[in-house]
């Protein structure tokens, strides 16, 4: 995703090595994706679901058939 938009930055965080950060985001299960500090997507998810979920979560009106499923 970071490669496809200059607006996107992607941090891969080793949860067990950064306890403070994991506490702050209440990481109880992995993978956990946190977008813009507030949108949480838990577990693995297929790309056609994941990306619209994230974009919708941050308030972007996404034009995609997948986006209407939630």
């Amino acid at each position, binding site marked *: *995703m*970071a*490669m*496809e*938009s*200059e*607006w*996107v*930055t*992607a*941090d*891969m*965080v*080793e*949860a*067990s*090595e*950064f306890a403070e*950060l*994991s506490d702050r*985001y209440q*990481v109880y299960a*992995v*993978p*956990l*994706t*946190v*977008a*813009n*500090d507030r949108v949480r997507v838990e577990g693995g998810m297929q*790309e*056609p679901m994941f*990306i*619209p979920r*994230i*974009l919708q979560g*941050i308030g*972007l009106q*996404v*034009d*995609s058939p997948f986006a209407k499923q939630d």
Partner: protein
Amino acid sequence: MALLKDSDREQLRQEFSQLESPVKLVFFTQALNCDYCPLTQQVLEELAGLSDKIQLVIYNFAIDQEQVTLYKIARVPAVAVVRVETQTVDGVVTTREHDYGIRYYGVPAGYEFGAFVNDIFDVSRGESGLSVQSKALLAQLTEPLHLQVFSTPT
């Protein structure tokens, strides 16, 4: 002692021979209070030793403030995975870094190791591998999106 097994090393060496553009691994470390910095450095050194296309540069998080700011590094150990692009204009070769904003915080080991190696390939090719639909969606972004993906080694 080497972290990578000989068989893995040989397989990676062969795979890395397919790399296109060079990839720079910009590593941030510090001497004190960083339990996982030495291990991360060893992983990166072993990877960089497998291909001329993988460059490793090392900065000190506590000292190299300019680089910390440039790469927007939040904590250590950190690795920025950056594409090195070469351009020839009128016979003059210039290189520039293409920083996609990909960062690894912590040791790229276990499950993360595979993801890390895949990212090296994607960055080298300059191709995310996402679907046309996904690319179209992401192209609609007009504001910052900061993703933090938490995982564990197993």
